[in-house]
């Protein structure tokens, strides 16, 4: 059971981290699907720098942390081979064959890619645009959060196939 200090630290640190990320995303118009989209459409690599810098920043922190403290599962593919990191509610049972996880990743990834471009940006960009007063992004967020409830309440119990 988590102590009160842990709960408070998580709430405060995620809120502050979110504010910093939101501020910088608004200033830089950062978008994680926009990079690939702009490169395909107009050969512009500007937005591609954000995911690349994100990857480098995260890898550096994980690497330093694994040197100075204990990071028993990093890097994941060495300790857990090809198993995915948990977090996908459909693939909660990690004991299923590996190709099931690959199929889920392909279906989910294609869905995100196709619909994110039609909406005009990744979920982060949509949150930022909604905060700038864009009504279409606000409607996007409405669908986004309704989908979270519908998926967990109605879809997930019925398609727990893996």
């Amino acid at each position, binding site marked *: 059971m*988590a102590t009160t200090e*842990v*709960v408070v630290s*998580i709430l405060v*640190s*995620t809120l502050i981290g*979110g504010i*910093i*990320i*939101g*501020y*910088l995303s*608004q*200033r*830089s118009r950062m978008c994680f699907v926009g990079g*690939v*989209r702009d490169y395909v459409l107009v050969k512009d690599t500007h937005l591609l720098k*954000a995911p*690349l*810098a*994100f*990857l480098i*920043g995260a*890898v550096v922190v*994980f690497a330093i942390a694994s040197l100075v403290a204990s990071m028993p*599962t990093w*890097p*994941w*593919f060495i300790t857990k081979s090809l198993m*995915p*990191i948990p*977090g*996908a*509610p459909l693939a909660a049972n990690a004991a299923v064959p590996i190709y099931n996880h*690959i199929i*889920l990743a*392909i279906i*989910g*990834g*294609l*869905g*995100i*890619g196709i*619909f*994110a471009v*039609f*909406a005009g940006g*990744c*979920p982060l960009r949509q949150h930022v645009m909604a*905060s*700038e007063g864009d*009504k*279409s992004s606000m*409607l996007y967020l409405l*669908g*986004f*959060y309704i*989908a979270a409830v519908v*998926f*967990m309440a109605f879809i997930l119990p019925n398609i727990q196939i893996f």
Partner: protein
Amino acid sequence: MTEQKERKRIIKHSYLIIIAGLVTGLIAALLQITAGVGPPNAPVAYGICIACHGRDLINWIVNAIGGTNLGYGTLVAGVPVLTVVGIVAGAFISSTKNKEFKFRTTKNPGVSFVCGFAVMASALILGACPLRAVLRVAYGDAIAVVGFIAISVGVVISAAVIKVNARRAINREVT
């Protein structure tokens, strides 16, 4: 003179997006290592995920109001993470401070709604939004590499459709 100014602006903007991406990556990893948004409270590489954190927050609210028992990613005494709230607050502070806040209307509200619904459902199938997909790659998850390639392929498909539609619209105008 103006050309020089324009070039300076572009260079500044280019630095800004690298800094934004870098800081977001640092925060995402640090939240796991120092703040407890990771084992044993949550999965690894959970420092940032718009879809998962949004799901945690909305399901916590629905559970609190409706007495339901919807699933979570973080199980820290049943308290959700507040990253999404912070992002909205930070972007709002930034846009009002720089006088960029403006209500903009929409032409096709249904499309936005359906896209939001479909993106959240897809993100929960993959178990990651685009940000967490990159974070999982940083943590060394091979399935996340497949997921990110699938996202990119989806973007290419969608961009091709947009390109064809635009060309058709131009042709219609010409003829």
